[in-house]
């Protein structure tokens, strides 16, 4: 986790963003406990109230739940919501590719060719 002191984005928000991404990407599994607020504060060398606020934000978003005697654990993520998240990311990435292709003067057909080639390469790697 890289925290930027002067980016204008409050640190608790940066932490929440990083953890949210990890949760949605499945890196943090359902039922898995987040580090304790004081343990995380110690490791990141920030105040406890900051990690607490980050966790509270995730809890407000429904991503984690606070459990008596144990800390914060990751909620089951709605697979529909996850799929939608990924779908959005695919669309954004492709829109970016189209923009770059336009600038390079590529036709839609050429762009599709490239996509096809990359897909084939990926398939070969995986098989």
């Amino acid at each position, binding site marked *: 986790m890289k925290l930027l002191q002067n980016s204008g984005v409050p640190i608790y928000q940066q932490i929440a963003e990083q953890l949210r991404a990890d949760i949605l990407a499945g890196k943090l599994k359902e039922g898995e406990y987040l580090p304790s607020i*004081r343990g995380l504060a110690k490791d990141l*060398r920030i*105040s*406890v109230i*900051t990690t*607490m606020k980050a966790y509270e934000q995730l809890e407000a978003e429904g991503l984690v739940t*606070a*459990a008596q005697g144990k800390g914060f654990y990751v909620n089951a993520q709605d697979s529909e919501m996850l799929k939608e998240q990924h779908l959005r990311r695919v669309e954004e990435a492709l829109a970016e590719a189209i923009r770059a292709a336009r600038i390079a003067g590529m036709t839609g057909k050429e762009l599709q060719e490239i996509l096809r080639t990359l897909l084939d390469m990926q398939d070969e790697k995986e098989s």
Partner: protein
Amino acid sequence: MSKKDVKTTKEIQFNDKTDRPGQTAQMWQKALQAWNLKKNFKGFQLSVPGLELPKGFATALIGENGAGKTTLLNILTGIRLDYKGEISYFGRQEKGIDASVQERIGYTGPGSYFLPQWTIRQVEEISGLLFDNFHKDRYRALCEELGIGGSGTDVSKQVKSLSDGNRMKLMLAAVLARDTSLLILDEPASPLDPLMRDRLCDMIRNYLDQGGGEKTVFFSTHNIADMESVTDYAIILEHGNIVEEGFVEELKEKYICVKGEAADAERAGEAMFSMHRSAYGFEGICLARNLERLAGMDITLETPTLSQIAVAVMKANTNLGKKA
């Protein structure tokens, strides 16, 4: 349940083993509560109608020299007994400080409370005699870690021959070598160099982590910038009165740092909490609730540091008739 007035704090249970009860039924856990503390000196009065330390967090007592920080801390640690008011520790019903409470409090002072002729070795022996919960091995490990112990250290060195910084390290080692629930540290960063101040912050975080929500730290400082990265709750003291307090994240939402153009300075000044202006523009703190009064101006907003908030609050309370 009596509602605390003013405070910008949410009332939530803050234990690591936390159960979030939601928006209702919220109770702070308090390491310490005090009511109607008063102490008069010639030309100065400490007056604290209410004080609460949130358990499991590090609270900073911020104030200029002479604001009354040491007086307040001396009252809370039982060093000063001639005061009015009541204190309850660790959620106990009984008010006041007794031996069992003393055993759970660790204190470091602005000077050194070790007698000057004691040696480093004697500090260890005496601490062991004074406190049941003093761990010699921990003390030695801490001394070594802090650079005042270990092989090559002359334990027959007297306290008076140590530098201010090393005397503070000695106090910190002795206090952290005990099992305590509350650390009260009077200006712990002052005699330390920047590297060691950093280390002090790590030690405080470590203490809180070890406690898992059961250990609390209360330290005073006249320069909060050094300790900002470890401060959870801030109490600002000015002329013996608490003029502002709250959790840092909430204070940073209550006060906004605003920068703008010189042409707008006059109009902005009426809405701002504190301001500095020059030919190049103005800069200052504005209460979030007053931000709308700056609508239409060419301004940038930033989150203030705790240091900026403290300075603005202290300035506002120093001048008579300054608007809040």
